[in-house]
């Protein structure tokens, strides 16, 4: 009898899911995703859709920050480019929503490449500041180029339709959301099994070494900016179509920070982490709020303090996560798996070595 999973050929060894348990888990997860919308209330569907969009955005950001090591504070700006491009293409030129979403992704990729140009000379914090400039510039353009974007006024986006059905209902959008989020995750997973993806990682780990082994460092960085922005633009475009109405206030510097928080809390450079982070950062305030509402009735004395307490709790939870598991939720998940690997026996993988 085999006492483990042994791969006897390369094909299974480099497979995406190498162990039967992984495939079972994925199957269960997908099953749950399929059943969820039929059981969940609109509120939970609303949250799920927000998580789906955030996952796409976080995956995009993770490609750049987690995998390629280029810190970006321009997430909000790139989402704005995606959202406004798709909205305006449909509104002004009457393009179908599918076409304008794709166009928006490419437009965002182009803008991303443009603002990635400083990465030729700048690294680390300096690059971060130059992407902050991207955030400010895009925000300024959106709020001041009134003829194109409508300025600070909100833009009403025509509802997307599929087979005569409105797609921006909580239920309808759910399917679009999970298919695109799943597709993005699959693409990202495969990207980092390819030569291009590996060169991203090489640049992150040590750019000089990468250039020595023949990686075109600048080209790779730009490609990372393009790939990342493509998905960030997708997240922006989806926001526009889901919410029906967009204004610049959705895509501020705060958005950029929130997305960075997602991938840091979730786990830099992991796909699972992007999902976990997106889910946590979306759900946590909602959950804390609900608990707060329960307390409103039972403990009126603290009711007045609740809003501030809620914000403090949000901060504390994030700090605790980082203190106890700096590698994020993704690592926490791995710890749980390791723990149950030989459960109920005490021996754990990685110990005793």
């Amino acid at each position, binding site marked *: 009898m085999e006492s483990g999973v042994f791969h006897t050929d390369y094909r299974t060894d480099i497979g995406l899911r190498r162990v039967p348990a992984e495939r079972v888990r994925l199957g269960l997860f997908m099953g749950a995703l399929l059943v969820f919308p039929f059981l969940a*209330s*609109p*509120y939970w569907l*609303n*949250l799920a859709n*927000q998580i789906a969009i955030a996952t796409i955005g976080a995956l995009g950001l993770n490609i750049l920050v987690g995998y390629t090591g280029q810190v970006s504070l321009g997430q909000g700006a790139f989402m704005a480019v995606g959202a406004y491009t798709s909205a305006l293409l449909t509104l002004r030129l009457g393009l179908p929503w599918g076409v304008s979403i794709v166009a928006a992704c490419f437009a965002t990729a182009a803008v991303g490449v443009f603002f990635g140009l400083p990465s030729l000379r700048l690294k680390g914090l300096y690059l971060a500041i130059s992407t902050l400039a991207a955030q400010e510039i895009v925000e300024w353009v959106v*709020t001041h180029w009134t003829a194109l974007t409508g*300025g*600070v*006024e*909100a833009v*009403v986006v025509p509802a997307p339709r599929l087979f005569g059905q409105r797609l921006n209902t*909580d239920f309808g959008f759910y399917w679009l959301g999970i298919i695109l989020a799943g597709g993005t995750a699959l693409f990202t997973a495969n990207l980092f099994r390819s030569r291009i993806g590996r060169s991203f990682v090489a640049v992150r780990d040590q750019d000089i070494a990468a250039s020595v082994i023949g990686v075109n460092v600048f080209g790779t960085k730009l490609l990372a900016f393009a790939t990342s922005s493509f998905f960030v633009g997708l997240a922006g475009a989806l926001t526009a179509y889901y*919410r*029906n*109405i967009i*204004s610049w*206030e*959705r895509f501020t510097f705060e958005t950029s920070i929130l997305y960075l928080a997602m991938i840091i809390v979730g786990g830099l450079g992991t796909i699972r982490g992007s999902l976990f982070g997106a889910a946590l950062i979306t*759900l946590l*305030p*909602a*959950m*804390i*709020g*609900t*608990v*707060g*509402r*329960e307390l409103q*009735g039972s403990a009126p004395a603290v009711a007045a303090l*609740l*809003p*501030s307490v*809620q*914000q403090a709790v949000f901060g504390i*939870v994030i700090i*605790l*996560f980082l203190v*106890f*598991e700096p590698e994020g939720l993704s690592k*926490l998940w791995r*710890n749980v798996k390791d723990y149950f690997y030989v459960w109920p026996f005490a021996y754990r993988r990685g110990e005793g070595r």
Partner: protein
Amino acid sequence: MRSSRSALTCIVAGCLVTVLALAACGGSEERAEDEILIAAIFDLTGPTADVGIDYADAVRGHVDWLNAQGGVRGRPVRLIYQDYGYQVDRAEQLYTQFVQEGALIFMGWGTGDTEALRLRITDDRIPFSSASLSHVLGDAHESPYNFLVATSYSDQFRIVLRWIAEDHRANGGEGDAQVAFMHNASPFGLSPWAQGGEDYAREIGVDVTPYEMPRGATDYTAEFSRIGQSGATYVVFQNTSAPAAVALRNARGLGIDATFVCLNWCANALLWRLAEDAAEGVVGAIPWAPLTDDVAGIRDIRGYLESRDEDYAGKTNAYTQGWWTMAVFVEGIRRALDAGEALTGENIKRALETIDGLDTGGAGPPLTFTPSDHRGSKGLRLFRAEDGRWTPMTDVLTAPSWGPDAP
């Protein structure tokens, strides 16, 4: 080390699970059969919390006061609410949650969230009021479920512009009056200018230049040096009290010689607290009277606050606005019940549209809604800041009818 670490991890995970479990169980509590559910979102922690807290207290206070008096036609009202920190995403989540729980009416807050929810409330048929008084929201054709329970920003601005033109002539000013319009960098800030103000100013010969007030700025020297050079003798603020107070102190420090005017959201008691002497002489366009104003519509509020040992003098007129916004919706519910109709959003909307000249006891002008016009009032009084309080300086001035609104 290893074991203590995993123990802590367990604690953190345990806490999270508890929070999630508590949250999942939430909202399942029993409620009385005849209870009327009203939902609200407030800004208690976000950038507009300076005035948002009073507005929230007032809405809660009114419901409390109403229930103490036996509710609406004997039916108690329950308010479900949550702080949303001025975040549009959060507002949308809460809206979905509250409507699902059976809320008949939704009280919003900012221009951003009101815009974001505008289409959904129409689909869901939920009468909606917010503290945002953007002129377009009163267009019953575009936004059939939005109700403006005070003078729109554009009307406020037009009243102020007309007053400026008269004041400028009365003081022997030559040529067109020069006005600097300093506004919050948001739809809220730009609304009075973009929605009619610009055109009206041109029509009556007032020269207005807009200046943006960047969010979170602590200094407006650059703006005021430009204003000083432009020769503007009037400065109109469309912002909340905190930034307006910063700007006022700045302007006084720089010796800018101009008449300052505050629209709705900065003409309040908070401006006095923050700007102190710099607020002296500021003109305020105030649709809902401050609590220091001794009129019938304010006395109920004072009585309620006194019964709770709270001091009314420190509260802003956001309190009056919140109180009366709630009161108007309650009136809609009362009318729907009196007509013997089932309580649905659609019926409440129709009932609200029968309100004709609702007396607000001097707290604000009488309110009228019709199926084609959801701008409840077109007039307001101008106040002047004197010795730590706002004193009325005019009677109710009615906004000039203009452009698309003209009969």
